[in-house]
């Protein structure tokens, strides 16, 4: 049987996940501002690729959230 993580281990894992989430959110913010600038300037070539990239980031974040709930459940 797998041994549950100790409190200290969970804290370390959470800090790592949080750093990754922050990175993805900053990337999404950059994508949003760049896309808005392109849209207002009439350049539509970047809109759909940026939308797909942003949703991929959200998907990764959703996966990390799922793991967080799992982590909380394995005490």
């Amino acid at each position, binding site marked *: 049987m797998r041994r549950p993580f100790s409190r200290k281990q969970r804290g370390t894992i959470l800090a790592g996940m949080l750093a990754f989430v922050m990175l993805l959110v900053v990337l999404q913010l950059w994508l949003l501002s760049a896309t808005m600038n392109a849209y*207002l300037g009439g350049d*539509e070539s970047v809109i759909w690729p940026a939308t797909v990239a942003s949703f991929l980031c959200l998907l990764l*974040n959703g996966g990390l959230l799922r793991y967080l709930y799992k982590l909380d459940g394995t005490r």
Partner: protein
Amino acid sequence: MSGDGPEDDPRSPLDPLLDTPRREGLTGTAPADRYKPVADPELVTTPPDGRPMELQPAWRTDFPVDWPQDHYVERRDFMKFMILTSLAFAVGQAWIAAMSWLRRRRDRHPELRIARIDEVPVGGAIEFAYPEPHDACVLVRPREDLLIAYSQRCTHLSCAVRPQVDRGVFHCPCHEGRFDMETGRPLAGPPRRALSRIVLANRGGAIYAVGVEERTI
């Protein structure tokens, strides 16, 4: 010479009675297993009613008693908030994509007669609305052979720009933005994008607006 042990040396800080039976636990000389903790370090959280965590109500996991667990809960909630922010950014991105799709569907600009060429004096300007009645635009004639028209909406915060034909610029009075008159590109102030250019056509001596050209630079 007898008596050379530490007990005979007045400078020695060691107590000669350290190994005395029944004093070990007090002086730190006892074997390590005597110092085994009485409780698991993981179980430092002791709820007020003393019952184990498994028997506590669910809300107690979100309102911890001790600081280490409180820090963990803080970071966990911050991560959830960040993921909510991520969702908001993705929704914003989808909104831009939807607006772009809608704009492309209705991207048919009507033709609008602005004025006859001889009605626009050299160095003068005429204001008009295009393509919708609330979209203010300005047609300028800086030289005899040059007629250009731009949207009056500043690309910073949408204030109306004013032509200064003698200086060859459009001036935005809100934040002192300036645009080059011939290209529409920003020269000074906070704007970073060029003014939207109105595409003109000359039909029988009359000037018509036939389209809008938006640019990032």
